[in-house]
């Protein structure tokens, strides 16, 4: 067994009563020292995975291994993992120091050590001098940091973060993304981060698990997942995209919008029905004559860094284009793209 593997899920299913399983026969491995993100819409099972790792719930079927040992029935308080909760779950009756010291006091650590470690943890999250503050005196961002300090002070092997940034405003959220990534590098421990925000996932992770309906749809680096989505769901969930159906005529030749195009994909059956993804930023505005596709502009939105154009081709397919060039509504334009911009996916959705 690879000793870099720290957590292993072996055909884990979680089901409440007779409802559909919230997690359906999921297997994966988590390695030491990496930043993982579980990404998916609400109800996809990402928080369930987190709660299974933390030990708040037990799997209905399958096994969970931690450092190679089966931990299905080990209670949360006996696991080497700590959690940063979505609502922070700071103890309102304790001040900042006592909140952070909570885990150490339970371990009956000597007072001087507690003092030193708590101060160190607070320095780590830039909250020096806030020891005696009450929790209700802290702002949202500060509470967030207290929650992180309270978790990392216990030196867990794995830190679980349950949508910890969702309650913060945009500017603070972006700032905390940098800080969390930086913190993970400095601590060198495994982070498992849960979010439904794809930009957050792409910006922070070493590896992303995209989940839907209790199953892992795709796992890979942010670049893999963005550039090579395996199915319609992943393509649609990660970033904005144009997804249309097409036919794989032959290796490197695909047909959609009643035209044939060269592409870089191969290994499909002849004339297989496929889904095609082209990212809006890969479509380039040009004249009708030079364009590979001929479309009519339906609406134009100014997005700051670019214009977002919504166009329709003659077959009624919608094309979303991100461009720095502007076009007028109703105007006929051409769209140009490289063969690499075409991503072909199997319709069944497998990898």
């Amino acid at each position, binding site marked *: 067994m690879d000793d870099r593997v720290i957590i292993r899920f072996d055909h884990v299913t979680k089901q409440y009563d007779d409802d559909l399983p919230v997690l359906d026969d999921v297997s994966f491995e988590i390695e030491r020292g990496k930043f993982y993100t579980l990404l998916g819409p609400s109800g996809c099972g990402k928080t369930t995975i987190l709660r299974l790792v*933390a*030990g*708040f719930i037990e799997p209905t079927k399958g096994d969970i291994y931690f450092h190679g040992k089966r931990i299905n029935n080990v*209670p*949360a*308080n*006996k696991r080497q*993992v*700590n*959690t940063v*909760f*979505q*609502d*922070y*779950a*700071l*103890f*309102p*009756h304790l001040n900042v120091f006592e909140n952070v010291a*909570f*885990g150490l006091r*339970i*371990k009956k650590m000597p007072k001087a050590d507690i003092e030193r470690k708590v101060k160190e943890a607070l320095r780590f999250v830039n909250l020096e001098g806030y020891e005696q503050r009450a*929790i*209700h005196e802290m702002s949202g961002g500060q*509470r967030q940091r207290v929650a992180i300090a*309270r*978790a990392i002070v*216990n030196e867990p092997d794995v830190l679980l973060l349950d949508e910890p940034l969702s309650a913060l405003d945009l500017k603070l959220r972006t700032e905390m993304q940098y800080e969390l990534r930086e913190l993970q590098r400095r601590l060198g421990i495994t982070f498992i981060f849960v979010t439904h925000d794809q930009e957050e996932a792409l910006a922070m992770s070493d590896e992303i698990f995209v989940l839907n309906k209790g199953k892992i749809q795709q796992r890979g680096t942010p670049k893999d997942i963005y550039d090579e989505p395996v199915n319609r769901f992943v393509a649609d969930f990660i970033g904005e995209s144009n997804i249309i159906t097409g036919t794989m005529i032959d290796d490197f030749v695909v047909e959609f919008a009643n035209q044939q195009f060269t592409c870089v994909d191969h290994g499909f059956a002849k004339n297989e029905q496929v889904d095609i993804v082209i990212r809006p930023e890969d479509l380039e505005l040009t004249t009708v004559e030079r364009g590979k596709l001929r479309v009519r502009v339906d609406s134009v939105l100014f997005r700051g860094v670019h214009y977002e154009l919504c166009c329709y081709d003659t077959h009624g397919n919608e094309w979303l284009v991100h461009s720095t060039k502007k076009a007028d509504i109703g105007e006929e334009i051409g769209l140009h793209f490289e063969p690499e911009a075409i991503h072909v996916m199997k319709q069944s959705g497998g990898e």
Partner: protein
Amino acid sequence: MRRYAYAIPYWLWIGLFVIAPIILIVYYSFFDIEGHFSLVNYETFFTPVYLRMTFNSFWYAFLITAISLLIAYPTAYLLTKTKHKQLWLLLIILPTWVNLLLKAYAFLGLFGTYGAVNALFEALGIGTKQLLFTDFSFVFVSVYIFIPFMILPIFNALEKLNPSLIDAARDLGANEWTTFRRVIFPLTLDGVKAGCQAVFIPSLSLFMLTRLIAGNRVITLGTAVEQHFLVTQNWGMGATIAVFLMIAMASIMALTGNKKWGVRQ
């Protein structure tokens, strides 16, 4: 001006039914049995007879509160975990709608020499016991009557408790007992205090039960007030005891006064 007009019924009510009676009680406490102004009632209060009664009142009120709390907290805790909690809660509240006197008479029947409990004892071979007119039956019946008032505020406090705080404590290594001791109990302390006030204060001045259930074997300040006003007609002494009862209650309210924790931040 309109705003003040709305407050008139409120101030009338408070004035007539709260402030005026208190002033009257304090006024009466300065008259002896012949109607002369004097401090003799206050001197009498500090004699062993009345000090003993005061001690008794506090002791029984303390017993009733402590036993209620010991039963009510686990009950409230279990209630928050049950499926049909509103139904269970209703069943607990229901007896409070029955008149106190009726409940007391029901216990006279149950605990009497030929009552249901003694019949059961007889059948089990334990033999008939003297249940009525004992300290035990007094405390038992009082706890029975007051326990809903202890369960309700504790139940509400437990319901308001953010469940992720319990997860957080477990996550940080606390076992179930430590979680209870360091997180659940401190955060429901307000409910416990409210419950203790709701039980301790009325049980300090209990009077009817002392006669019906305890057969005047337990004499508390409440009994003494009743006797002075209705039997010995010494209104001055009765009022003086009432003054001390009010002082005691006010100080308990002040001592258990709430500092508010935001339960869900």
